[in-house]
């Protein structure tokens, strides 16, 4: 039973992609870089090229981290749905199969200034 109820009960999902005016939510986080307290949420058109997300809104948000200046997007390892993932920066979010409310994680092994300082 999907909910404890008196009779059959069907809920309405509040966060469906139709509610975002042609855009979608994407979550991004940088593993082991917890200066950013939680995964970042972006709301973008699905046609946005992935490389543009990295160079534009994501780069702006990551600036505060001391490792950000040395970030090389060609070297990072990606995860989607917590599984290894190889995005094509020239393709759009949709073209890369990145859906509404998907979580992307990236890793930069060996770079971890704020933790190493401890």
């Amino acid at each position: 039973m999907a909910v404890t109820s008196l009779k059959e009960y069907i809920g309405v999902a509040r966060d469906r992609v139709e509610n975002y005016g042609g855009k979608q939510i994407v979550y991004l986080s940088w593993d082991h870089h917890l200066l950013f307290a939680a995964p970042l949420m972006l709301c973008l058109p699905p046609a946005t090229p992935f490389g543009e997300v990295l160079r534009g809104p994501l780069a702006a948000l990551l600036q505060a981290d001391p490792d950000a200046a040395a970030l090389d997007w060609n070297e990072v390892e990606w995860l989607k749905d917590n599984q290894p993932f190889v995005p094509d920066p020239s393709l759009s979010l949709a073209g890369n199969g990145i859906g509404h409310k998907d979580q992307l994680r990236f890793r930069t092994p060996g770079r971890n200034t704020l933790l190493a300082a401890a």
Partner: protein
Amino acid sequence: MDMKATKKKLGMKERYRILTRDLGWEPGYQSKKAIFPYVEYEGIKVHDWDKWEDPFRLTMDAYWKYQAEKERKFYAIIDAHAQNNGHLNLTDARYLSALKIFLQAISPGEYAAHKGFARIGREFPGVGTQVACQMQAIDEIRHAQTQIHAMSNYNRYYDGFHAFADARDRIWYTSVARSFFDDAMSAGPFEFMIAIGFSFEYVLTNLLFVPFMSGAAYNGDMATVTFGFSAQSDEARHMTLGLECIKFMLEQDPDNLPIVQGWIDKWFWRGFRVLGLVSTMMDYMLPKRVMSWREAWEIYGVENGGALFRDLARYGIRPPKGWDDAEQAIDHMSHQFMLGLYQWSFGTAFHSWIPSDDDMAWLSAKYPDTFDRYYRPRWAHIKKLKAAGTPFKNYGLARLCQCCQLPCVFTEPGDPTLTCHRETVYKGEKYQFCSDGCKDIFEHEPEKYIQAWLPMPALFSELGGDVAAWMDWVSLRDGADNGDYDGSRDQRHFDEWRGLATSNL
């Protein structure tokens, strides 16, 4: 004319029987099922409602008398506090952030509890239960009122108090408490009792109220201490009701055990998430601290909670499933939270700040295994950014948990350097969570939680991402209610007024 009393006054026991149990009757022209339609669908089997014991045996007439007396005392002190500029006796106006969070997130919960108990007092068939729930419903609305009245004095002088109801409904850090109560109120009557009567009142209230009221006393806030005292005797009754209810369910039928255990697992975890706010108040927001969150957890969580679950073991109840994950999180949660509150402080109706060197020394003494290793480097970097004239603001809004609705600030059990990532797909839609505990709750009743109204995604779905429009909508006055305490109007006013009260300049 004098009349001689012919009959002795009723004894306590007889009085209770007449004013409580005697009020029930067997319905004649409607079936019990039609009158109490919500009492069976959760699967709890009850064979004899008369087995419900009310250890307090309080009757309504006595109840009114006690409560009226408490109200008179409460308002006398509140008036004195207002007339004597009691707000200038605070240790420091940073303390007010804890109060603002309490008013925006917790006091509305008292009101929600009032509505819930009024409802289940109607839905339960047993008369003893009905009367006890009715009294608790009145207690809860009284608590909401006295808290609002006590804190309204501060609204005359300080920012962030003026729109607590909008904050409760619309802002992002209150939705953990709001969704807790919404979840309970949309459950059946027995689950509601476990959620509020047992988990919240019995297992968690001490962790919320004792440190909070002691914090108020330590920091010179007589108004808040007074509502604490006024509510205290009620809380004892509420805890007893919660415990009585759980024992009643377990004694009535062995089939109730797995259902009750599931609810204990769920509501312990949901309550634990609400306490995240409390941990931050204790470790960061009280200028004069009472004890650390870790120390409070040792006393009220480990010792008291441990004793409770040892007591319930004879019914087959085990400690809540999330207990070990909770224990691991204790040394991290207040730091993870405060770092989040600070970087998103453009969107909070209270102030946060970078802990001073003294504060950090205290935190590192209280959290020797975690603070210096994981959290001090982040604060040090944030301090450097501020000194460089580029204070850290994280405009990347946070991923919220579909269940507890908090920003996902929590880390993997076993790895405090990595955010906990959990997700699931239900009917083709993806959902994100902060922890295994929250994901399990969702997966048990997905049709309920897919309806969650999550404040941060809503900024995009309802307001197109316009932060200024969002601030208007949540009644947040940019530059006054939000941001760093350092340089705030609250700081300026408090220092100036206190200066007038204590010096001749």
